[in-house]
């Protein structure tokens, strides 16, 4: 519906909607250095992940026993080598792919599934709400990591099972966030209006409520990714994640631990890589939250 169709009344005193949006966005970007810093870091990490084979001449799993335990800044090995003489930079770079993949994949299913559950229970209410929210309560009562480890020990170690385990537990926060938002939204005029004109419940939930409640869940995705990557690293550390010799930060930290007094770089450098990605994603999450809240 354009303004003309409404009868040609001039809208001089009303700022055009498009313009309002633009100035707001510009203002927010100016006041959100957190978001900018996070994005720059993340782009950097993604570039490393994509160009990993170009950044290093070494195969991350190739063993070179004569070059074991070289410290950082050795000739040919900028970050040194591990106990098998494998290049640490090469392992960290290749691991970036895996860890980003862990972050992305183990968050996407919980995000989609959890958000839909949250909207459905929030909007429909009744018995469905009671049952699903009790399930959520039960799952919430378990410490996240313990539950994931329990599921992993039943399914066995490996990457696919890691996604399943994190997925089974990870949808809960999304369900809770979107349910809360939906509860606040369901009595607003536009929802009532949609109902009045006879929209089906499915249509109302997907077309009217979802776009308005998804933002907080989307922001939580970044927190979820950090948690997923850390969980992946923790499980690798415990031997439940990707199996050796696959390069993965958590596994590298665990492998290096034995040689901590001999070769600090084996543990510290992958730890720093984990730190960078964690900080990048958290900054983005924070930045988005500030934008929304501010």
């Amino acid at each position, binding site marked *: 519906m354009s303004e003309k169709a409404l009868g040609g009344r001039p809208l001089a005193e009303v700022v055009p909607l498009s313009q309002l949006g633009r100035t707001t966005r510009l203002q927010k970007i100016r006041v959100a250095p957190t978001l900018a810093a996070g994005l720059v870091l993340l782009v950097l990490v993604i570039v490393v992940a994509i160009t990993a084979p170009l950044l290093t001449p070494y195969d991350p799993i190739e063993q070179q026993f004569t070059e074991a335990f070289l410290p950082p800044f050795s000739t040919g090995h900028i970050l040194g080598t591990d106990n098998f003489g494998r290049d640490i930079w090469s392992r960290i770079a290749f691991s970036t792919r895996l860890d980003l993949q862990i972050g992305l994949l183990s968050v996407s299913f919980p995000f989609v599934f959890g958000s839909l559950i949250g909207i459905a229970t929030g909007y429909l209410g009744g018995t469905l709400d009671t049952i699903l929210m009790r399930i959520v309560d039960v799952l919430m009562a378990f410490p996240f990591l313990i539950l994931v480890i329990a599921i992993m020990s039943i399914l066995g170690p490996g990457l696919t099972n890691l996604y399943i385990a994190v997925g089974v537990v990870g949808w809960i926060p999304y369900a809770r966030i979107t349910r809360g938002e939906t509860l606040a939204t369901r009595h607003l005029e536009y929802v009532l209006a949609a109902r009045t004109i006879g929209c089906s419940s499915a249509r109302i939930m997907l077309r009217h409520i979802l776009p308005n409640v998804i933002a907080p869940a989307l922001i939580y995705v970044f927190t979820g990714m950090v948690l997923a990557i850390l969980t992946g690293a923790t499980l690798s550390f415990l031997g439940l994640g990707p199996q050796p010799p696959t390069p993965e930060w958590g596994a590298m930290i665990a*492998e290096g*631990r*034995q040689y901590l007094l001999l070769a600090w770089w084996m543990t510290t450098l992958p730890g720093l890589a984990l730190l960078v990605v964690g900080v990048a994603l958290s900054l983005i999450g924070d930045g988005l939250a500030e934008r929304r809240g501010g």
Partner: protein
Amino acid sequence: MLARNMRSPVILAAVAALLIGACAPSGTQSATTQPQPTATSTGPKVLKMARNAEPFSPFVPWQIDDNPALFISVNVYDTLLRTTKDGVGVEPGLASKWESSADGLTWTFTLRDGIKFSDGSALKASDVKGSLDMARGGEKSAWKDNYKAIKEITAVDDKTVKIVLSQPYAPLLSVLAMFSGGILPADMAKATDAKDYDNTMAWKTKGTGAYYSEGWKKGDPIILKRNTNYWKGTPAVDEVRIEYIPDDNTRVLKLQGGESDLVDFVPFSQIAALNGQSGVKAQTFTIQQSAFVILNTSKPPLDDAKVRQALNYATDKDAIIKTVYFGQAKFMNSPIPQGTYWDKSLPGYPYDIEKAKKLMSESSGKAGFKMDMQVRSGNTNFANTAVILKEAWAKLGVTVDIQTLDTAVVRTNYRAGNFMSTPSAWTNDMNDPTEIVNYAMRGGASPFSYWTRYNNPDLNDKITKADLEQDAKKREAQYSEIQKIYLDAAPLVFIAYLGATAGWRNNVDGFFIDGLSYYRFEDVKINK
């Protein structure tokens, strides 16, 4: 609220990333919160030891099947005979002399004069009978098989014990020198077999050994007090205080910092570094231990000896010894560790990739195959070995799928036969090869030739014959043949002979790990 919550992951990420490696599970907290008795020149001499594991078996010699418990046992409970320090021979223990009848069926042991238990009561032949009867026939004994040749034990008088065998049994003296034959007062020995026996009671010990314990509970340091009645003379150290520090790095740091006088299981990677520092020493002692990979010979193509031999030849032992064990290990040339009747002339499988490729091309595995290698989580030496083998065996077209699993799961799997390969290690508990040969080479029944499912009836017969042979020379020849047959069949991938490591401060004197990996505190001194 939401925005505030968002910040916690940043902190979480930062803290976790930096600390995940450094924060190892360790007992340091409990150790620092407890008051430590400190030895001064005037006070009692306390030896503070940090050890990698704490006991879990009931503390009764014949019920023990874990190293931490048996390491304590040899300090508390004496055996009739003892294994010599090199782990190859047998020397007098509680019995000062012994003789056998001409047919080798009746053995008479004479106890030393004046031996007393830690509470001052005298050792009698009836105590020896009471304990050994429990070891060979007690409900809860874990070592009955070793004693099955014994028909009867009698206490002839207070100082004479007679053992009658149902058939000649060459390893008898070695069995009597094993920790499982530790002597308790007869009534105490009998009580341990009762159904409702409280295992914590066993930690209030009464043995004839150099030390005794007044009680222990899990998580606490084990405190051993010296036995002033000890028959070899009162030990120099008043008290040994053993705490449980599972993390290797923490243990080494405690030694360097002077919080511990003595630590065991120093990582192979740190022996050289420790010896370069003042105030501490570290050493690898030769023990009868071997490291290898178990192959499941019932799973094709591992049922083909050529495949197994090819895997053996394709394994670069020197690379593993250097990379995994930091040079603190030796090439494994025979299926049994370097103890009695070990055949040092056997060739083992020196690294030869061409020979390996040739053997593989003639075998049923020539098209290449995939095999799992189940690794116990937490064992870095096994994990590192697996990583090296994965790359090495890929050259033969073998794809190794490394699976890190909980130790209990790996154990269940290999017992049930649900595995293709798994790295493992063996330590002799007695100085006679009968133990490893019966466990690792005899097929047909549990433990199925070290769970390899290798079963050679001809070899089984030879193993039985070797147990009966009384002539040492002939036995040696029989064991040489047994070793050769098993080596050629290659149900294992033979890798290395390992040592046991320990580190101590310079003021500690006389610490020694013997050939069977025991250590006794009776000869240890602290110079303050």
